[in-house]
């Protein structure tokens, strides 16, 4: 494995790992805050238990998100020092703002998790709201930095160097709005439906359990509207890609030839050798219509670009199909939940609906990974689109497979441990009576000290 490939793999793996936890960190606080608010409003203790149960999971996932995020900030330099040297002054701004968002998030999460019996209920709810706001803000900032890599602005290029740097203009690059909107909605859609799926699964086993019924309702409240908006926001993203990154669009769609009235290809296998996409269902003129809102618009194919500048077409195309396919299913199930609500029914009483929610539950996270593959692999061979090649950014240090192997091991270990921890003893599978939960020791029990309630 070449050093460049090792570096790319390590970066991709670290980001793919971190994003799971980051997404949970964006959306879970909202679920907790809604549950806590309902408890404070109606005095229903089940909502309090729900908020506490969710906050336990969030605590674990947040810690893993924080440490994996730390790895990423160093990795930017460890793997891509030339890129950071070049681009640091331009994209440092959103990272710095993100730093303050992390501070706020970590501070109020500490208050939230450990402060149940130390501060007033209002202050506690406020802390939860601050966590939710700063989590979303940190996601928005970091995606802004990524958007700059896709559509770099805010500088003049003189002899290959960036001069007249304007970090604000760089933050307001054309990709920022579509990407941050899409990513924020994706966080709520993926987390909301995933949580809904878990509780739907348990409701199928224990119909009418009040705990899971309430959990399902809150999770759908957060997840379903976002999932319904995903295709709309995805359309905005696709149109900006068509305008600013035509090579990426061509790869996403498996479009080799430049043509007017280009068809939309659903599925299919692009072949770079003979420049065709086979076995796709083609909807005539639909791509031109979607990308430019004009059925006869010209869509640039890959033939408009030198082959050295093509991204890996097969991967990008398939990842895009996966995201859109899963997104469509999530949107349909979410519409179904609105329909049930609109007819004033309880979602938890529809067993087929519950089964559908279980089915879509992992899809948001898969779609997020697929979407990032589209964005990042679709940008190749550039690290900064049309300006800086990934191959020129990589560290000169040889032997990069060793850190790759090391971090692979660490991520596997972290993934297994956090799964074990979240589903462990007080798992939802063997849920102890609610009264026992309320007495869960807040203080960690260290071995050697007398065991508490259980």
């Amino acid at each position, binding site marked *: 494995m070449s050093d460049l490939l090792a570096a790319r793999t390590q970066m991709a793996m670290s980001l793919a790992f971190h994003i799971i936890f980051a997404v949970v960190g964006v959306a879970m606080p909202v679920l907790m805050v809604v549950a806590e608010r309902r408890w404070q409003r109606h005095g229903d203790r089940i909502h309090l238990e729900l908020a506490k149960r969710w906050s336990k999971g969030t605590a674990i996932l947040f810690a893993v998100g924080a440490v994996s995020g730390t790895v990423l900030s160093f990795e930017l*330099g460890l793997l891509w020092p030339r890129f950071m040297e070049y681009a640091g002054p331009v994209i440092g701004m959103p990272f710095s703002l993100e730093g303050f968002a992390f*501070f706020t998030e970590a501070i109020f999460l500490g208050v939230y998790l450990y402060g149940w019996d130390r501060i007033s209920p209002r202050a506690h709810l406020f802390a939860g709201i601050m966590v939710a706001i700063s989590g979303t803000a940190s996601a928005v900032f970091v995606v802004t930095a990524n958007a700059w890599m896709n559509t770099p602005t805010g500088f003049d290029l003189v002899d290959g160097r960036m001069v007249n740097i304007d970090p604000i203009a760089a933050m307001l690059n054309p990709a920022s709005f579509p990407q941050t909107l899409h990513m924020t909605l994706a966080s709520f859609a993926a987390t909301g439906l995933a949580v809904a799926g878990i509780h739907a699964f348990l409701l199928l086993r224990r119909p009418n359990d009040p705990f899971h019924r309430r959990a399902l309702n809150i999770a759908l409240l957060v997840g379903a509207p976002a999932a319904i908006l995903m295709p709309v926001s995805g359309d905005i993203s696709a149109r900006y890609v068509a305008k600013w990154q035509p090579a990426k669009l061509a790869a996403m769609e498996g479009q080799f030839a430049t043509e007017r009235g280009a068809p939309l290809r659903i599925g299919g296998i692009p072949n770079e050798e003979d420049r065709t996409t086979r076995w796709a269902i083609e909807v005539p003129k639909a791509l031109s219509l979607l990308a430019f809102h004009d059925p006869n618009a010209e869509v640039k194919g890959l033939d408009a670009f030198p082959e050295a500048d093509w991204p890996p077409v097969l991967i990008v195309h398939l990842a895009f199909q996966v995201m859109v396919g899963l997104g469509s299913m999530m949107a349909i199930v979410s519409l179904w939940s609105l329909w049930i609500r609109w007819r004033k029914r309880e979602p938890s009483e529809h067993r087929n609906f519950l089964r559908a929610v279980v089915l879509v539950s992992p899809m948001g996270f898969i779609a997020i990974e697929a979407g990032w593959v589209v964005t990042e692999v679709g940008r190749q061979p550039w690290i900064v689109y049309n300006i800086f090649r990934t191959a020129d950014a990589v560290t000169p240090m040889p032997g990069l497979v060793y850190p790759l192997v090391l971090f692979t091991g660490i991520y596997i270990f972290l993934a297994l441990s956090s799964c074990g921890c979240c589903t462990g003893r007080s798992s939802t599978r063997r849920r102890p009576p609610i009264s026992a939960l309320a007495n869960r020791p807040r203080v960690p029990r260290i071995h050697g000290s007398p065991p508490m309630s259980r």
Partner: protein
Amino acid sequence: MSELFTLPVVIAGIMVVSLNAYVLLAGADFGGGVWDFFASGPRRAAQRTLIADAIGPVWEANHVWLILVVVLLFTCFPAAFAALSITLHIPLVIMLVGIVMRGAAFTFRTYDSQRDAVQNRWSLVFAVASLVTPVILGVCVGAIAAGCIPTDAGMTFASETFRDAYIAPWLTAFSFAIGATTLALFAQLAAVYLTVEAADPELQDDFRRRALIAQGGALASALLALVLAQREAPALSEGLLRGWQSIPLLATVSVSAAATAWFLHQRRFRHARVSAAIQASAILWGWPLAQFPWLLPRHLTIETAASPAPTLRLIAIALAIGALLLFPSLFYLFRVFKSRPARTA
């Protein structure tokens, strides 16, 4: 004056302030892990519970100071960030593994099964990571201070071996002496803070003893580093001993070190906490002041490494606004959790 306090210098100063906050806050969290490792005696379990209670609500916030330093470094001094990341790749990876394992193991221990076997396993990971990470952090600082970070690693000499470029710069006695100093300082800070947090006098005594031991360790290893610096980092040692700031700084270190020991002896723990913090800060500040105006001594000055002015100006504004947001929140966090002694088991 205005010649001295240029924008790059001010931002570099803010980075040292952030690093100082990291040492005083997160450093103590690592130190807590060290004392978890060395928990012993009849109150072993109580010691561990006290440590866990003290770290739990705050470590994630404390940790962000390091992120801030890194972000400021790559935004405002990108050339230095690149050079550091290349030459110190190996120790930085080890440090990252330590940071990951410490945070993850601490959290898993809190929330995983309370069975002894599981708890013991996480405790061990937590404690070992807390021991290793500060040493490696110190090693990295030592390599920078000794002027071992070139800006052209891996590019210029084809004859340069892997060892020359990626190992030799940091694998020195001096760097490891700085590593040992860092570890001892972190452990001392933790022990001193824990005397304040413990409600039970016996537990206070446990940590009082530990604080004094770590105090001795910190001074001894700092002295060792100073001696080794004569040979391995002559420019630094020159700056440390003969700069304009040498006398006031050495005086601060000696006075606060003596005061810490005295206050501990007198069981005036709140006072000891303040003087221990001053002592650690003075030792830390000795480094940047001694190497001023260099960022990477012998290779890059603060001015030459700095980003263009528009970036620095915006970052300065962001820092000012961010501070307005940050300090009230931090104050609130510490008031909620540190204003009264934690319950003891």
